């Protein structure tokens, strides 16, 4: 946050207060926005009031000190602001009454209080509603739940800020016009909707994790997965997804070299992996009793995360989890990765046979990673010249610079 940095340049105490404000605002943003949306039904008003509360905190905390309950303070300021705006607009008395009933003191509600918990979940399920376009769901989640500035979201989506503003406005209009309910589905409907919510989180994570992505989005995805995990117990795919995120995120320091290029798994310095994140992922996964698609992906990632080296990897275990994943959630990319795993577990011939099978549908045509996998298996079979040619062809097909350089390096090593 620019304001926090500006304040920090001059007074250490003021900087500490500004940091406290930024942290409290980040932690309570979803709760404030979610509650105000429920009461007022006005998404923009809710976001503006949460923002206003942060501005007030940055102005008043450096001089007056950080309040004992920062989250409660912010909620109270946001609520008062909403009351003022609505009163000025002279709107319905019912909304004002509900606002008045909302946390009248500056005390935070007790942890785990039903209504507050519900509000954040309601917000998540509404932002991730399938009646919104997929990109709109991700953008709305970032803006409304995470409080990411529209300009930052626009940059990640490679559009102008005004285009992103329009897209967010359209999504909010659709919610109002189509009467998308502000509700957490229950019973069978929850099971039906949860994969869609987790899919948005997954997309959010990959937006932060992919080459050229916004690294902060991966952190937001993890924060949201933690929030879901605490709010919706008994849904095994949530801890499974969180574990998957943690395993992938544990490699963030090791997966780029000094030039910013992608370092493949087999060449990463495993001492630089975040072992605390790995331990947390393993603990989460240990509690999952029923394996859905995310649990299976997390189990695959956990085998890599606990191996001391590529050679020490339990490849038959990886291949076995891929067999289960291919049966449970078949896709061309899963079939490709399964072939690679079998290649390491049972030799390049086994891998090439499964790769040919995976490619037979044509879905992997023009996919650089399929060619790269064939090149790698061919190299390990001993056919270096053919492998080098395949790596070069794979390099021609990729659009990512770092990936192209990595593939050309492999080709050069073999020639």
């Amino acid at each position: 946050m620019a304001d926090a940095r500006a304040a920090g340049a001059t007074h250490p105490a003021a900087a500490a207060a500004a940091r406290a404000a930024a942290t409290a605002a980040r932690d309570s943003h979803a709760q404030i926005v979610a509650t105000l949306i429920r009461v007022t039904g006005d998404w923009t008003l809710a976001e503006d009031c949460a923002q206003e509360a942060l501005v007030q905190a940055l102005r008043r905390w450096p001089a007056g000190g950080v309040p004992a309950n920062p989250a409660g303070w912010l909620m109270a300021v946001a609520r008062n602001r909403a009351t003022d705006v609505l009163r000025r607009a002279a709107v319905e008395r019912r909304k004002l009454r509900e606002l008045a009933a909302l946390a009248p003191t500056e005390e935070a509600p007790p942890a785990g209080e039903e209504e507050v918990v519900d509000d954040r979940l309601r917000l998540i399920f509404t932002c991730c509603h399938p009646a919104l376009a997929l990109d709109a769901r991700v953008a709305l989640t970032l803006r409304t739940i995470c409080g990411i500035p529209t300009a930052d979201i626009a940059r990640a989506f490679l559009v102008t800020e005004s285009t992103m503003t329009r897209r967010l406005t359209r999504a909010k209009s659709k919610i109002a016009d189509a009467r998308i309910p502000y509700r957490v589905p229950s019973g069978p409907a929850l099971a039906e909707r949860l994969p869609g919510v987790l899919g948005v989180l997954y997309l959010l994570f990959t937006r932060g994790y992919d080459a050229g992505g916004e690294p902060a989005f991966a952190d937001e995805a993890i924060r949201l997965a933690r929030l879901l995990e605490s709010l919706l117990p008994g849904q095994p795919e949530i801890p499974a997804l969180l574990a998957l995120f943690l395993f992938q995120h544990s490699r963030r320091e090791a997966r780029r070299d000094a030039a910013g290029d992608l370092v493949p798994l087999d060449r990463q310095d495993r001492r630089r992996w975040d072992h605390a994140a790995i331990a947390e992922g393993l603990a989460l996964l240990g509690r999952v009793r029923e394996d859905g698609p995310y649990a299976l992906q997390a189990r695959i990632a956990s085998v890599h995360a606990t191996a001391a080296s590529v050679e020490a990897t339990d490849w038959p275990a990886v291949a076995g989890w891929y067999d289960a994943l291919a049966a449970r959630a078949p896709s061309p990319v899963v079939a490709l990765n399964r072939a690679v795993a079998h290649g390491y577990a049972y030799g390049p011939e086994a891998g090439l046979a499964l790769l040919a099978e995976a490619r037979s549908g044509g879905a992997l045509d023009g996919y650089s990673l399929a060619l790269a996998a064939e090149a790698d298996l061919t190299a390990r079979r001993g056919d270096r010249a053919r492998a080098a040619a395949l790596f070069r062809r794979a390099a021609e097909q990729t659009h990512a610079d770092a990936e192209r350089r990595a593939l050309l390096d492999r080709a050069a090593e073999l020639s």
Partner: protein
Amino acid sequence: MKYMMFVCTDTEPDTDQSPEPDIEAWVADNDARGRRLDGHELAPVSAATTVRVRAGEVLVSDGPFAETKEMIVGFDLLECADLAEAVEVARTHPMARNGRIELRPFADLG
């Protein structure tokens, strides 16, 4: 005979400058004759949601079922003796000139 009358936009409306029929009068007249049973204007396509079930899975998506320039903006449920009467009702609707009207008889489940 029941007809579902879809009121749609059209990219090439009529350019005739003669006064447009009044929608309120059209509704009142056809209601009085008992040939308009129900009907309403619809919210814009931006509020549309499409629902499908495939292999037991519910697929809900944003937008109308078909991405076309023309869109359904309203409907009327008609009770007419035959298509001739339904066309008579449709041709006097203002959107027959500004857009187009589609008449769909109820399927005969005899």
